[in-house]
């Protein structure tokens, strides 16, 4: 038990040190965030930071506070304690908990993006694929139909949807296609940080693989930073540079992805890693 505590402590110190070094050119930083649902803890004292182009995985069991954390740092949920900073395009540091709602909404649709687990939450189902991709463009002031359509077609190609389906409604798409469309819709304005809540949940394995492959390429190619919430360790192994492990609203372990997955220090992380099914 003592050895375990010691290891945990050293790990925390390592983590802190690294944070001090990275602070100079960070993209996004959350410090000591807490969110309570009445008596219940959503997440408690969570700190994390993300560098430009980095992928951070958040893993943990259901109810561990992953999604709460994600919604807090995206600005969808108001945090009870703590600060969230974004280093925006003009290099000014904004505090999400202090800025006005119009500003926050503007940032949410230009610098940030959010991919929902269920594409129905993130898409407009009664509007064509092209319109879905174009919406964010029109929201930031694009007013040329030809241009919008061309960009939309390009993005359909990028996410491997046949361009001839540009005028079809997402309701006629398969689950995997809908998810890819949602990704295209979010990436079209070139956000710098994308939040994903179980992006491959509810899809069959081969479709999952395809989407992961696509995500990996897009994120690397465009240099977009990402936060991926998942309970699937294979997903983080494939995509993430660093991960944090959560349990009961607390971060119990954090570190480089391979380091944590190959050599988990906390009891729960060990359990999580060892319970992955081997084929």
């Amino acid at each position, binding site marked *: 038990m003592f050895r375990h505590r010691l290891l945990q402590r050293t790990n925390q110190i390592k983590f802190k040190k690294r944070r001090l070094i990275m602070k100079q050119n960070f993209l996004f930083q959350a410090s000591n965030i807490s969110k309570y649902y009445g008596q219940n803890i959503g997440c408690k004292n969570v700190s994390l930071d993300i560098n430009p182009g980095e992928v951070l995985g958040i893993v943990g069991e259901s109810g561990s506070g992953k999604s709460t954390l994600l919604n807090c740092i995206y600005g969808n949920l108001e945090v009870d304690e703590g600060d969230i900073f974004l280093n925006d395009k003009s290099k000014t540091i904004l505090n999400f908990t202090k800025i006005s709602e119009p500003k926050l*909404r503007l940032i949410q649709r230009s610098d940030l993006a959010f991919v929902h687990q269920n594409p129905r939450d993130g898409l407009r189902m009664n*509007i064509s694929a092209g319109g879905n991709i174009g919406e964010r463009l029109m929201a930031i002031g694009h007013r040329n139909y030809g241009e*919008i359509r061309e960009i939309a077609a390009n993005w359909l190609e990028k996410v491997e949807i046949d361009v001839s389906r540009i005028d079809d409604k997402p309701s006629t798409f398969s689950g995997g296609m809908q998810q890819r469309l949602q990704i295209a819709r979010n990436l079209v304005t070139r956000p710098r940080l994308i939040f994903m809540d179980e992006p491959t949940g509810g899809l069959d394995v081969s479709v999952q693989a395809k989407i992961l492959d696509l995500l990996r390429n897009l994120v690397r190619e465009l240099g977009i930073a990402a936060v991926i919430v998942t309970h699937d360790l294979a997903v983080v192994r494939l995509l993430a540079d660093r991960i944090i492990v959560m349990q009961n609203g607390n971060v119990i372990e954090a570190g480089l992805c391979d380091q944590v997955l190959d050599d988990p220090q906390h009891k729960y992380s060990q359990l999580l890693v060892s319970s992955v099914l081997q084929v």
Partner: protein
Amino acid sequence: MNEMSKNENLDIQIYNFAYLDENTKRMIRRALLKALCIPGYQVPFSSREMPMPYGWGTGGIQVTSACLIPKDILKVIDQGADDTTNAVSIRKFFQKTANVAVTEKTSDASLIQTRHRIPETKLKEKQILVYQVPIPEPLRFLEPRETETRKMHALSEYGLMYVKLYEDIAKHGHIETAYAYPVKTNGNYVTDPSPIPKFDNPKMNNSPAIQLFGAGREQRIYAIPPYTNVKSLDFEDYPFEAMKANFKCSICGSSDSYLDEIIVSDDGKRSYICSDTDYCKEQTKLNSKKED
């Protein structure tokens, strides 16, 4: 018994002037003033139960009632016509309750209540145009949550409005929306011009007359003050186009007024006539003068 005969003698005295009581009119006037100060902004007001069903112009009537003064000359049109049911009954209503003079001539009227048209004759200063509005919220069918649409107006997040126009072009090759075509008022709020044909949209821009909009069921009032910039939304490569049927009026021969299509025989023969009856009459008069 005595009371009743008194009432019969003073037919109009049983109503307050223009039907509504003074406090209600005052409340509506306050909403109107606010609406004029913030062009295109939808001001909530406590709409009253009127002696007619919703959808018949309860909003327009309340606005007219609040604006009317005894020396006003009132004109009421419905789809441009002075002689349709809605127009006739509303005109009679104000004759009875306010005893104001009425006219069919656009240029003579000081207050015009309209349903779904703007008169062809150019409006002047000191004229008031009151629109009957069924749905004041241009974003209603795009975003069902009222809390959200209000936020969208407040933050001018109008991307969604353009998505609708995008869908039109993607589906039909051009902007198919033909009526209630959304406009931007004073470069700020996106406004529903009530279901007027988009042919009438340019008439709203920089109009010397005051334009007031009343939505009774939805309890909203909004306004466009005189000489305000009103721009119909469009794309750079698909500019706004004021459309009408490409025919001549079969009564007055006018080719520049908005036309109604009517079926004149059982085998589907069609004819086109001006929807603005007053304008049509004027044109016919002018034509016969020319012939003389």
